[in-house]
């Protein structure tokens, strides 16, 4: 369980780090003609998998079992939902700035979790 936690935290940090790149790219392309916003979906997939994971898969032919949570990969998609400016660009700068703050806080939360995890391990080792 401990290892699983660390692996999941590592994966989440990777995803949040990559999302930062995407948001930075979206912001730098705020006026680029025909640019469409990129987004990265991950937490929702994790949530879905967690819901499915109440059923334990004990046999390879079992249906509906969740994969290992760490095997879930983020999905990159183009956002076409928001309003399009006249140059074909659909970056909503307010959305991007909020997403960025959110992402940043999420990174902080994850590092805090990771540090706590290591602190616990440390306690176990040093008594």
């Amino acid at each position, binding site marked *: 369980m401990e290892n699983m936690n660390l692996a999941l935290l590592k994966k989440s940090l990777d995803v949040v*780090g*990559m999302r930062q*790149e*995407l948001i930075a*790219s979206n*912001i*730098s392309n705020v006026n*680029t003609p025909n640019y469409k916003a990129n987004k990265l979906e991950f937490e929702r997939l994790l949530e879905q998998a967690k819901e499915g994971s109440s059923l334990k898969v004990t046999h390879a032919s079992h249906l509906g079992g969740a994969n290992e949570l760490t095997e879930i990969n983020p999905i990159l998609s183009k956002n076409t939902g928001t309003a399009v400016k006249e140059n074909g660009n659909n970056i909503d700068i307010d959305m*991007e700035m909020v997403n960025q703050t959110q992402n*940043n806080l999420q990174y902080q939360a994850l590092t805090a979790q990771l540090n706590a995890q290591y602190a616990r391990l440390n306690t176990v080792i040093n008594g």
Partner: protein
Amino acid sequence: MTIFNSLNISASGLSLERLKLDTISTNIANVNTTRTEEGGPYQKKEVVFEEAFKQSNQSLNIGISRKSFGVRATGLVEDDTEIREYDPEHPDADEEGYVLQSNVNMADEMINLMTTIRAYEANATSLEAGKDMLKQALTISAK
């Protein structure tokens, strides 16, 4: 270094906005220029830019080989609309008394200036956020 990607992306945005700012400044400075080295009045210049891409070598398997990597300038275009004004006293006036004026529109330039400054600020904020995250990463198990 891959971990500095987000900083480099923001930097590409900053440098593009800086280039736009320089171009706008040149346009404004030359609003009344009727004589240039190439002959004729000063022609308004505009930066053209597009999304930049990078081959992806992400550790995360998300099924793409190239990803958005900020923005890059592709060139400068000149606006070649002609503006003629009647001013027979002007040294550059033709026989009929008309002078070819620069086609810089001050109102347009000021609006572009504001947009550019705001975009620059947004990129600077983004850079700051990316930097914060890297600093956070350094605190992992730092005790």
